[in-house]
């Protein structure tokens, strides 16, 4: 057997690909599901926190800042383990899918809040005043004048963060969420072949390369608009 065919046999074995392709596809579906849930709840929660923060209530803002800082400083895997193994012992049992969703949503919300807040403070004071002078309430001014401008500034950094955090769905494997990596490592240990690992890696590339390219496009487009 030549080196080349040995390599193919080990990393791209057709029989094993055929056997485990359904599992990997199932894993892709789970990854997409978790990712979609995380993106929606994470960004919505982040925006809500930034809006609440813009009311500048001291005690509330202090809590928000502490929460956001902690979530930004801790490795997500640490939070996943604390929630997954700790909560059952105090009487709260969540399925692993829910734990992953909850933790990653909170982490994304923390980063999104920072980005949205930076966007809000970067809108000049005169815009607030102009809105208030036409009789709009503070909340209306925020919704119709400040946020539309702020969000435009936040699109590129938020896209990058969202991609990075969405990739953390792979952490689900540690607590048994049947996503791509979990399927791939399980298949690898059953088959004793490296092929499922390659399939898993390729599955991630198939899902995320388009996202990365779209992210890059968004970055240049919005950067150009601003300049």
């Amino acid at each position: 057997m030549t080196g080349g065919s040995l390599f193919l046999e080990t990393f791209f074995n057709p029989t094993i690909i055929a056997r485990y392709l359904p599992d990997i596809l199932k894993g892709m579906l789970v990854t997409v599901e978790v990712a979609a849930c995380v993106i929606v709840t994470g960004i919505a929660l982040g925006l809500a926190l930034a809006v609440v923060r813009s009311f500048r209530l001291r005690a509330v803002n202090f809590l928000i800042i502490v929460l956001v800082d902690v979530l930004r400083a801790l490795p997500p895997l640490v939070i996943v383990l604390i929630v997954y193994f700790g909560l059952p012992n105090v009487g709260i049992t969540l399925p692993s899918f829910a734990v992953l969703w909850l933790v990653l949503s909170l982490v994304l919300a923390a980063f999104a809040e920072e980005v949205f807040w930076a966007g809000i403070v970067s809108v000049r004071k005169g815009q607030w005043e102009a809105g208030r002078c036409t009789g709009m309430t503070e909340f209306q001014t925020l919704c119709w004048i400040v946020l539309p401008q702020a969000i435009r500034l936040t699109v590129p950094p938020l896209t990058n963060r969202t991609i990075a955090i969405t990739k953390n769905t792979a952490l689900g494997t540690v607590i048994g969420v049947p996503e791509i990596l979990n399927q791939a490592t399980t298949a690898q240990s059953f088959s004793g072949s490296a092929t499922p690992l390659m399939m898993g890696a390729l599955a991630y590339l198939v899902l995320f390369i388009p996202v990365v390219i779209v992210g890059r496009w968004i970055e240049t487009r919005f950067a150009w608009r601003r300049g």
Partner: protein
Amino acid sequence: MLDIRALRKTFGAVEVLKGIDLKVARQELVFIIGPSGSGKSTLLRCMNRLEEPSDGSIFVDGVDLLSPKTDINLMRRKLGMVFQSFNLYPHKNALGNVTLALRKVLRKSAAEAEAIAMAALDRVGLKEKAGNFPSQLSGGQQQRVAIARAIALEPTVLLFDEPTSALDPELAGSVLAAMGDLKKAGMTMVVVSHEMRFARDFADRVVFMENGEVVQDGPPAVLFGPDAHPRVKAFLSELSH
């Protein structure tokens, strides 16, 4: 119409307004002049509570502006304001800048808001530019859109804070012309500006402020004439150099 009594404003330990009394009658144009830092902007911003006055009272059409029971959003709508730096909304075109408050504050339908906005833009001579975004308008055009945004809400008083000082003289002319038209149409206006020609032509009264106090208040003929207060004369001769 507008009645300000013993208005005071302090920033920290600094007293910027030291008891201002000012009355503005219906359809009157009151023109405020004074050296930099004399508190002109602060006075104007107190009139619609962008700054919270420290003491004194402001009545608009008999309504106590400073009373906690007053709906400040309702009153702000009646006190239109035009800024030195325009403060147009960059994410909306000229029409969108004018219709936003009509829709969100007055709850007009889209068609109604658009009709009112087009009429307002027409009054400042910018009907053709309704679709342009602020970045596609000259400074003078931007400022006229800002005026249209204010008059579309049918304010009882319009406040101008140095509306032309960010503009080249050629562009300032179009803005001053639009303001003159408003005056002729009977709008009540308070204008802080250095455009003395405009004051001579259109002001009913000129108010000279210095160090947070009103030094002299009278018709333009008096303040720009031989009977002006010596400090006014000094200021004006300084300005013309």
